[in-house]
């Protein structure tokens, strides 16, 4: 069992560039069929040059970037905030840091701050998650 401490950082990960197919796959899985994420005409109708990324896709990848390390059974809360838009072709980078470790319910509760950034370095999704470890 890894002994996590405040200040520990996870190895950052950069995914392949986003594609509209990624958006469609996530939208089908989640049931959010908002056309601005896959339909060029719908995107242009509301002022975008092209379909914009689904925020919950990066939020989902940010959460699994963490649960791949701490375990899916350990997660207790995930809170995300959406900031800069992302677009097809953007290779998003995920990084995270342990910000708190406390004893709780016979184990430890870790608080982790995580961020998904665009190739320009803007925050696309920022979040906080809590994990219960034995």
């Amino acid at each position, binding site marked *: 069992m890894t002994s996590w401490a405040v200040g520990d950082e996870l190895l950052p990960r950069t995914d392949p560039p986003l594609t509209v197919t990624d958006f469609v796959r996530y939208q089908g*899985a989640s049931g959010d069929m*908002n056309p601005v994420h896959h339909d060029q005409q719908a995107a242009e109708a509301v002022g975008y040059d092209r379909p914009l990324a689904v925020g919950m896709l990066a939020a989902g990848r940010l959460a*699994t970037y963490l*649960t*791949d390390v701490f375990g*899916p059974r350990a997660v207790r809360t995930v809170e995300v905030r959406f900031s800069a838009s992302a677009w097809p072709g953007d290779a998003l980078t995920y990084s995270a840091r342990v910000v708190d470790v406390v004893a709780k319910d016979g184990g430890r509760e870790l608080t982790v701050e995580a961020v998904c950034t665009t190739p320009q370095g803007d925050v696309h999704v920022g979040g906080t998650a809590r994990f219960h470890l034995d």
Partner: protein
Amino acid sequence: MTGSGGAYRFPIEEGKVQEFVSAVGARHPDHQGRDAVVPATFLMASAWWRPPEEFALRGMDLTRVLHASQEFTYIGEPPRAGTELTVDTRIERQWTSSSGELHFTTVLDEFRDGHRVVASARMTVVIREEAS
């Protein structure tokens, strides 16, 4: 626009879990098998089971709605494939920015396994008033 307060079923199916696991690129082995643990943001897929009249944002032009924030809370471990949850959805709060341009809505979904609440999801969206 306010939900009627009715509840609806949310069966957690193995195939749907795998579809979601693939979409978000989850790699942990606990996501595999008949009793796969759902990914941390999987509760979004309850949208597939939500009756139209329970959609808290109905009537809004969704192409102009932006997702501002999202929270998931689990009481204990996240649910597994093979479980059937019941969802209660309601608008928790609506407010307008001091400038009057941004209209926020927070929707709270509570997920029950029988009578026990096992998880919740809180979504905040924003609509910007169009410049005239």
